[in-house]
């Protein structure tokens, strides 16, 4: 089955995202990035979908819904930061904050004890239902694998970028039941838009190369329940 890559140019509509000193909007820049990445991916005969083709602003859930009904798909959300070292790129994968209730020993100052029953992150079986609000739990390992691949390629094209991806609770990724990452480039804080335009092609090539090397650890065909 052909892999489908869902590219997510973040923001859109009235939500411009980060704004540059000359009024440059993140929502426009990432749409250009997505279009460039689509060309690179379609050249590999992959199926590519964009969560928005123009200046719309789908909700987090609407973007998630585009991929959660698909089998053999991956999700890549594209962002530009407000600040940060210019010309660097970071890849993020979702990390679920611990649900473990710490047990504090006030006298000894002991570290929190973990309760096995509450430990989170269990990979559901192929037949189990997946909670929409925590759909990413089904794919945390594959997402991490994809993030490492992408960041490894990005760091070759964007010098001074971190060597490894970053684990962070990026909201958009939480409700996606497939390998999902976010890529953020720095930064919108430029007076010349060409400096961001120049990042589109290396970014597209990096995504194309990483996706070509990606083989998911285990595809899940379950559909999230409780969509809202």
């Amino acid at each position, binding site marked *: 089955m052909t892999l489908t890559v869902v590219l997510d140019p973040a*923001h859109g509509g009235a*939500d411009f*995202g*980060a704004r540059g000193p000359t009024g440059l909007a*993140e929502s426009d820049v990432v749409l250009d990035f997505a279009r460039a990445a689509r060309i690179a991916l379609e050249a590999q005969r992959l199926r590519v979908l964009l969560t928005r083709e123009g200046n719309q602003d789908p909700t*987090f859930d609407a973007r998630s819904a585009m991929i959660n009904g698909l089998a053999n798909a991956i999700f890549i959300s594209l*962002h*530009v*930061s*407000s*600040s*940060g*070292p210019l010309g*660097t790129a*970071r890849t*993020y994968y979702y*990390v*679920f*904050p*611990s*649900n*473990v*209730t*710490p*047990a*504090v020993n*006030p006298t000894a*100052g002991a*570290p*929190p004890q*973990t309760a096995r029953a509450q*430990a*989170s*992150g*269990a*990979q559901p079986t192929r037949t189990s239902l997946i909670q929409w*609000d925590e759909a990413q739990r089904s794919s*945390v*390992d594959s997402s*991490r694998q994809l993030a*490492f691949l992408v960041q490894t390629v990005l760091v070759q094209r964007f010098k001074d970028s*971190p*060597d*490894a*991806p*970053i*684990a*962070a*609770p*990026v*909201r*958009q990724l*939480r409700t996606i039941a497939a390998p999902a990452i*976010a890529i*953020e480039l*720095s*930064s919108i804080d430029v007076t010349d838009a060409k400096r961001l335009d120049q990042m589109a092609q290396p970014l597209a090539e990096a995504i194309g190369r990483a996706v070509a090397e990606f083989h998911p650890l285990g595809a899940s065909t379950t559909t999230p329940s409780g969509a809202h």
Partner: protein
Amino acid sequence: MPRLSKIAIAVLAVLAFAALLTFPSLLRTVLGLRRADRSAEQARRAIVPPISTPSDTREKAQLFWLSPTSPDTLEATTVELDLSADAEKRAKQLITALIEKTPSQTQRTLPADAVLLQFYLMPDGTGIADFSETLETEAPSGILNEEMAVDSIVRTLGANLSNVYRLKILIRGQEADTLAGHLDLSGFFNVTPQAQAQPAATGGATGEQPLAANPSNASPSPEQQPAIRN
């Protein structure tokens, strides 16, 4: 020229003269207001008395702001603060200092207008920080920026309190979906008290750590540890 017209011209001349006399002071007032440039949040903060308790002592605290040389990392700065022995008030003093005592604009992690409305500490070590809505509306948009904002709070609490193990962020008493459009606020952020931190895991006082711990049964292998940013 009719007499009425002469009177009207005379009145207008007097009014114009009076306007000329008052214009400079009016201009000074307007410019003064512009210079002050204080938002409603800042004005509100100005009338809120400083957080002080009878147990306050002058202490050296480690506060985490953006590094002046590397804007995608946090750097510890030692600041002398009056800190309470009461953990809730101490946390409030620390976070307020994080907002108000930023060394420079380029090192700021939290919006200047943000106000910590309340801090609660549960018996299980969960800290709940309730911020004004300006944290949400004024924080620079972006994953990196929002990550730095939360990380600066988490690491400041961890460095100066021994009994806060995780943090929940509320906006005006309500759970918010995101900080400024990216970072998920639905869960808790793990706090590692400095006294218990493993040197290898934190990289010392200025080392980086992930915002939240991985689930225990999905821990990455050593070579796949979440990024320790450089």
